[in-house]
């Protein structure tokens, strides 16, 4: 009896194996067949095949649309067969993405400036410069030109911004739980003293809450500890945007850093930053998401993005951005931090650029790719407000986000939208925008500094350790890692670039 059962299982498994293999083949065959039929489409372009890799889960609706409407419209507009492949988020910026690049697969996906610089040095990205004028004409009108510049290296365009959203002054504002603020009888926050006052009062009313749900507040506190308008290039280096020079500031060695750590130390000791922050950073995020924190670092979009998340736990949560103390111009790196790139071995990079262009071409196409089909996936009311009828994500709308096209949910107040759209109006483009550091000469130093940062400097910066006691040793370690050579190289490259500009 039992023998028979075992064989039955093995048999079943084998047939499954065979059917799976044959399925794969027949699928490929039908694809070819459909590829040849459509000759008239795409205004005389040769047929092409595009593979777009996206990170995250593919929703059921996306799967459907990828085979129908999305496919058809791309075919019609640019005569290309587009295929979407979804891979897990862990593979972004390395992992499988790098393997696919290294084995010469023909595909496109998105990147950021850091990852781009490294990949271009290895020759993994296609140079898109020749196609920008012809293939990306529409999107040049709908996307801010500084965003394009951010993805140029040595004058060549290696990636194309995915969208266009206000991004100046990111994390320079305090995002406050307005509902709590009003509950304790305050109307706004305009200084550190008021912020701490808010903390004390809110804590008295809700002892279970934590204050600040992050370990980094150098930007939002900047207005308190310095008159400069600091703009960070990375963890170690900053620029003073209010000075007209090309001087790179060593952040950790500055007086400003010392002043900053003193505020952070007091926050940590007063439990404004909870004790567990030193260990369990992910917990901070989930505390904020579940409405257990009072304030956070803000961005233009966070008041409604964040409120939407928190509202699951606290239905009437409201969020407002405040800048502390001073009125300094908001700085923008003039870029959307995410951009499409095409693999070096792509057969037809131009067609990929045409596809990116399609996503940002006009309201109609934007609606289709971000929200789906009207009245089936979403409805728009007389005020242009959006109601989605499905929770399935398509091409993720945070990725596509363009302030000229995006639609807002009914729950977002009008003044928010106005504020949001005007957020960048007064902003100043950073004097370092578009500069990309070539780290080849100081790779070793940079790598070692990373180790010193995570072990010695980060805990001081977050106030977990006292500055006076621990900084001298940390600085010694930083110098031993070759920081002086690193900053000299950075300054040299930056000055050359700045002079040329």
């Amino acid at each position, binding site marked *: 009896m039992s023998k028979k059962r075992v*064989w039955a299982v*093995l048999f079943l498994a084998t047939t499954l194996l065979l059917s799976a293999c044959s399925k794969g083949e027949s699928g490929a065959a039908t694809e070819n067949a459909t590829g040849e039929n459509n000759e008239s489409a795409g205004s005389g372009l040769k047929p092409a095949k595009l593979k777009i890799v996206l990170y995250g889960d593919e929703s059921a609706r996306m799967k459907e649309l990828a085979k129908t409407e999305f496919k058809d419209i791309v075919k019609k507009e640019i005569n290309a067969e587009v295929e979407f492949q979804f891979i897990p988020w862990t593979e972004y910026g390395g992992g499988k993405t790098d393997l696919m690049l290294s084995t010469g697969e023909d595909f496109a996906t998105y990147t950021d400036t850091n990852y781009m610089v490294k990949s271009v040095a290895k020759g993994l990205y296609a140079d898109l410069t020749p196609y920008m004028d012809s293939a990306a004409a529409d999107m040049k009108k709908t996307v801010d030109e500084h965003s394009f510049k951010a993805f140029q290296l040595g004058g060549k365009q290696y990636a194309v911004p995915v969208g266009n959203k206000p991004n100046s002054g990111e994390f320079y504002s305090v995002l406050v739980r307005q509902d709590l603020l009003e509950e304790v009888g305050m109307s706004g926050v305009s200084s550190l003293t008021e912020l701490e006052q808010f903390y004390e009062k809110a804590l008295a009313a809700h002892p279970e809450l934590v204050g600040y749900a992050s370990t980094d507040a150098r930007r939002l506190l900047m207005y308190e500890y310095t008159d400069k308008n600091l703009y960070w290039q990375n963890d170690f280096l900053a620029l003073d945007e209010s000075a007209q020079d090309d001087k790179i500031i060593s952040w950790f060695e500055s007086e400003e850093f010392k002043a900053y750590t003193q505020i952070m130390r007091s926050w940590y000791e007063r439990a404004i930053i909870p004790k567990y922050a030193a260990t369990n950073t992910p917990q901070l995020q*989930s505390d904020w998401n579940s409405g*257990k924190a009072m304030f956070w670092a803000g961005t233009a979009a966070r008041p409604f993005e964040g409120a*939407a998340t928190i509202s699951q736990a606290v239905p009437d949560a409201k969020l407002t951005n405040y800048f502390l103390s001073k009125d300094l111009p908001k700085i923008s790196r003039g870029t959307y931090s995410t951009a499409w790139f095409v693999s070096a071995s792509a057969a037809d990079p131009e067609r990929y650029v045409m596809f990116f262009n399609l996503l940002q071409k006009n309201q109609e196409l934007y609606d289709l790719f971000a929200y789906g089909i009207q009245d089936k996936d*979403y409805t728009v009311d007389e005020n242009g407000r959006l109601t989605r009828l499905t929770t399935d994500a398509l091409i993720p709308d945070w990725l596509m986000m363009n302030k000229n096209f*995006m639609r807002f949910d009914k729950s977002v107040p009008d003044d928010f939208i106005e504020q949001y759209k005007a957020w960048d109006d007064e902003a100043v483009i950073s004097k370092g925008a578009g500069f990309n550091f070539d780290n080849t000469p100081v790779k070793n130093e940079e790598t070692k500094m990373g180790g010193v940062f995570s072990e010695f400097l980060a805990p001081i910066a977050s106030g977990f350790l006292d500055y006076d006691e621990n900084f001298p040793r940390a600085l010694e370690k930083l110098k031993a890692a070759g920081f002086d050579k690193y900053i000299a190289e950075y300054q040299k490259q930056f000055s050359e670039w700045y002079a040329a500009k």
Partner: protein
Amino acid sequence: MANQENRTLIVIFYLCIGVFALICLAPFVLAVSGSLSTEAKLAAEGYSFLPRSITLDTYKFMFDSKAEQIIQAYVVSVAVTVIGTASAVLVTTAYAYVITAKGFRYRNFFAFLAYFTMLFSGGTLPWYILSTKYYHLDDTLAGLFVPYLLNVFLMYLQANYFKSIPHEVIESAQIDGAGHFRIFFRIMLPLGQVGLVTISLFYALQFWNDFYLSLMLISDERLYTIQYMMYFMMANIQYLASGNSAQIGGAVVAPPLETAKMAMTCLTVLPIAILYPFLQRYFVRGIIVGSVKG
């Protein structure tokens, strides 16, 4: 006296093992109860052995509109585990027999050949290039188990079990004129059954738990394994929870990060951990009987 002493000793032994087993079981109970809680409750009140209020929200979030795909993934996982374990056990025991065969001149060479790969590896890139461009294992069911057919650690375990079989048994068979094949299939496999049970268990768990091969080689959804689906979802949930992608246009998803971790444990580890011990006897007998006849 001695008897009395023995009895207390036995009681103590039962207690030791029982307590240790309970300690091992505890996190699973916490995981099950955590997966049945809501994210907010878990954050507020922490873990507990009994769920404070039962909700299937997390499972709904994970299964939402995916039921069919998940069933398909379970089928693939079962197939990979069954085929993979059966073939891996044969490959491994045969190799283990070779490196324990007394008087075989090259046994040390083969032992070393295997051991060396435990220490040195050429990294992912060449492995990936070979597997996709030359062996064409991408998007095939074979790609989900063939690379793992010889686990050197388990091979050494099996060799160790073979060594404990009295040499006289083999010698007398040799005198009767039995060749290596006959000795391996008719004597070593049945006598080394305890070892087979152990390594087949470990192999089964290895194949069941693996997501790496799927991650590297599979892009066809029909070949996703359940572990890979979970890995995929988890990576996605972690990303969503990091707050980078909250959606503006209406439908909002607040992903259940902590509870999802727990649910994932329940959905992947539990089925095999609970079922396999009951199935292993049949399974191993199947392998032995099958190979003797074949």
